């Protein structure tokens, strides 16, 4: 009869270990900067699908705002660039920070590059995949605060283990939008965006001031 409590204990410990996150990211610059607002620049598109950039950009506000940041209105920001003759994301990514600051006044800027967007057809199945990487930069001093990458694929839809906690949340979100939007790549881009830009992602951004998870000071 001694055995079962020990087994239980082992079970408990392994469960707890499952919750813990190994190898933490170095957040010292991020903590020092304490950004409150983020301007997300139109993503650079390295995929073959011309829709990638704006499909992705339309879905970055949710994860960042739910992580506690003020996200500048992405369409209004884009329109402002256009009015100033800037339509190419690569040109926009090359703008000097003081120029960005002068117009937007955001504490930090998010630079996103999409490397994969779309469906590849294989012999037995098709794979719709979106992969992106992002860097968050302090607009006041140019310091890199955070860097990350994420991917999502239609082939993983039915395995709940893949994305962990964020994966589960994302699945719910996708089910919610699946009835209104028929574009599969756009849906997958939404999952990638959530995995990339949520404070709940592994080695993701830190929670911002408007989040209950925010740690001040």
């Amino acid at each position, binding site marked *: 009869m001694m055995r079962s409590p020990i087994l239980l204990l082992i079970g*408990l410990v392994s469960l707890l270990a499952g919750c813990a996150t190994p190898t933490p990211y170095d957040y010292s610059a991020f903590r020092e900067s304490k950004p409150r607002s983020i301007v997300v620049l139109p993503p650079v598109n390295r995929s073959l699908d011309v829709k990638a950039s704006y499909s992705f950009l339309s879905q970055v506000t949710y994860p960042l705002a739910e992580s506690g940041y003020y996200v500048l209105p992405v369409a209004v920001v884009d329109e402002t660039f256009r009015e100033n003759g800037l339509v190419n994301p690569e040109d926009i990514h090359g703008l000097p920070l003081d120029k960005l600051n002068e117009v937007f006044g955001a504490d930090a800027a998010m630079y996103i590059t999409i490397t994969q967007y779309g469906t590849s057809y294989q012999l037995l199945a098709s794979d719709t995949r979106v992969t992106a990487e992002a860097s968050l930069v302090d607009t006041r001093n140019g310091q890199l605060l955070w860097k990350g990458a994420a991917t999502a694929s239609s082939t993983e839809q039915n395995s709940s283990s893949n994305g962990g906690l964020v994966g589960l949340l994302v699945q719910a979100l996708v089910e919610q939008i699946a009835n209104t939007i028929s574009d599969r790549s756009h849906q997958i881009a939404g999952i990638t965006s959530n995995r990339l830009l949520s404070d709940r992602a592994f080695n993701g951004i830190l929670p911002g001031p408007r989040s209950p998870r925010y740690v001040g000071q």
Partner: protein
Amino acid sequence: MNKIKFTGLLLLAGVAAGCVHTPPSLYQWDAYQPSVYTHFQADTANLAQQIDLLEQAIDKAAATGVSVPPGMHAHLGMLYYNTGREPDALAQFALEKSLFPESSHFMDYILKAQKDMP
């Protein structure tokens, strides 16, 4: 002995539940991102319909006491502006600013840019 087992099980369940706890959303997300997507997809999209959807979402958020997402009022302001409803646009930019003071700099820039237009 049975009691110990039971307590252990309860504890296990508690720990497991702790892992999957999901907090409620900070904002009401019904219309904003789909509207942004529509806006990006085509300039010929029906502006009146987009405006209608956003207005409905704002009413719904107000009725349920949930905040609208950052940027939504400014986005609606832009749509108003593009349909020639300038006073309505200015009101939305002002709302964005009062709900999210972090937007002040950009909202002021937009307001000034509009004033400077011939």
